[in-house]
């Protein structure tokens, strides 16, 4: 069957008691693309994935996965998808090899033992194949989870926060695997609270906020929409006001202060504002400038701009750790 969209949902709603977790999810993921569902904790990402993978029934709305109706053709949907997430896990009491063989059997793969060995090899798990999954490191376990999703090549692969809680090296492994899958033509829907992860992996990003998609676009489109972030770091706090006035005059927008770093910055879409001009104007105003930059916005800026809330809002340590790790990676790169 040829359909343009691997995932197409309209008005999906889900309530848990008094909580309206999804308030009309409209999502379209083109076949063969990677879609990043990005949002803070509580935005409804996991609920969205649980609905789209038949784990929960929607209260309202409809969706088609790989051309099949989510509710009426749930069995067909299940034979075409695979899910890896923090909640949908391999069996910790079985070894890696036993897990993969079991899932291969349940997927009616011919030669489940050979398929298991192949996947163990591909994901670098051969050495720990006969250890109980619960005794494996987080990174290995996540790779095993992903391998278990690939015993038979899925049309649509759902990854719910596939790298949360992993060290940077393991995170890199998982991301590389996702890139390879996407290159093979598998449609991937991944949720993440790591802004730079969606930026790196996704063809399209859907920003989720309070149970709805707040905005959709490619990373580049979203960034173009927001513009660049102009920032000045000054020698002492007394100069912040002057610097802010300059930025305000140049961009017509009210700058935001970062007093800890004695910095002030503002988002701008003005193409005539270049770094030399920024430096000249600040210097001309007598600002004791330590550093000036005009950088592409982070997806954090994007999120702040489009939803009016910080991506970290309510996410606690997870997002903070993610950002810290992301920064480390940027330095490494």
């Amino acid at each position: 069957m040829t359909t343009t969209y691997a995932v197409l949902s309209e008005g999906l709603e889900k309530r848990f008691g008094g909580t309206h977790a999804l308030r009309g999810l409209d999502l379209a993921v083109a076949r063969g693309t990677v879609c990043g569902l990005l949002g803070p904790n509580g935005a409804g990402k996991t609920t969205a994935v649980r609905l789209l993978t038949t784990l929960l029934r929607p209260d309202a709305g409809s969706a088609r996965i790989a051309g099949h109706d989510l509710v009426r053709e749930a069995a067909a949907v299940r034979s075409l998808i695979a899910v890896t997430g923090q909640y949908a896990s391999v069996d910790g009491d079985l070894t890696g090899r036993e897990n993969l063989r079991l899932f291969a059997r349940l997927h009616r793969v011919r030669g489940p033992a050979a398929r298991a060995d192949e996947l163990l090899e591909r994901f670098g798990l051969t050495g720990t194949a006969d250890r109980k999954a619960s005794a494996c490191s987080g990174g290995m376990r996540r790779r095993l989870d992903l391998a278990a999703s690939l015993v038979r090549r899925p049309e649509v692969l759902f990854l719910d926060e596939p790298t949360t809680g992993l060290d940077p090296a393991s995170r890199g492994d998982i991301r590389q695997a996702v890139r390879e899958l996407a290159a093979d033509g598998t449609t991937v829907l991944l949720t993440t609270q790591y802004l730079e992860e969606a930026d790196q992996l996704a063809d399209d990003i859907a920003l989720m906020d309070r149970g709805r998609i707040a905005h959709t676009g490619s990373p580049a489109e979203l960034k173009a929409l927001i513009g660049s972030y102009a920032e000045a770091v000054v020698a002492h706090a007394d100069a912040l006001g002057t610097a802010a006035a300059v930025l305000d005059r140049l961009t017509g927008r009210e700058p935001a202060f970062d007093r800890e770093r004695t910095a002030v910055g503002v988002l701008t879409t003005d193409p005539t504002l270049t770094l030399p001009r920024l430096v000249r104007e600040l210097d001309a105003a007598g600002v004791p400038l330590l550093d000036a930059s005009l950088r592409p916005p982070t997806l954090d800026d994007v999120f702040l701009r489009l939803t009016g809330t910080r991506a970290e809002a309510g996410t606690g340590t997870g997002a903070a750790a993610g950002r810290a790790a992301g920064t480390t990676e940027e330095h490494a790169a």
Partner: protein
Amino acid sequence: MRALAYDGLALTGRQLRRVRNSPGLAVLTQMMPINMLLFFGYVFGSALAMPGREYRAFLVPGLLAATAAGGLMTGMFQAAADTHRGVSDRLRTLPVSRAAVPLGQAVADLVVTAVGTVPLLLVALAVGWRIEGPAPEAAGAVGLLLLFRFACTCAGVWLGLLTRSEEAAGQLGAASFVLPLLSDAYIPTDHLPGWLRTLAEWNPISAVTTALRDLFGNAPVPRGAAWPVAHPVAGSLGWSLVLIAVFLPLAVRRHSRGE
């Protein structure tokens, strides 16, 4: 139907491998009735009017029935663990027959129980218990016991899927320890006050215990007991089938809906 058998077999294999990989809990579970046989049989047995050997022969069918009722606890714990750890959800996203997961668990449990009961029977023989009835009746007793275990496991799986938490399942499991105390598994019920006797005799464990004592030829069916105990084989079959008819569909439904 073929799909169910295939998936069920694969999932039964999964549960058996789990027990093989982490045998600790299964071994402890099976050692429990052996300890109780020695403790009750010699400590309580010496305080009862019944002679010690006679009490131990009386006790063994009760322990077998109580062990079978332990399927409630084991079933609950495993199902809660699977739900809690996300294995149930993983299975639910696969094109697997819905009934195969609870059924696979219950069938694997039967295999583990059948093997795990052998040491208990050996100790029972060592302390003086014997099969005193004809062989076909003894075989019937084993069949009845396994059927009852299966029924209790089904109820346990449903409860486990309901609680979703290993801790809660552990607490409830510990509480289920009192169920055999309120039956004729460890003591004859004819000295209990009227209402308590009625309660104990309508406990499914009593019917199964009495059926085992009857079929193994260990003790006669008590006179003047409530219907399930007075007709212990029919009573045991009836209880088991009712439990299966109620809890197996509930467990399957709960597993497939997942909320």
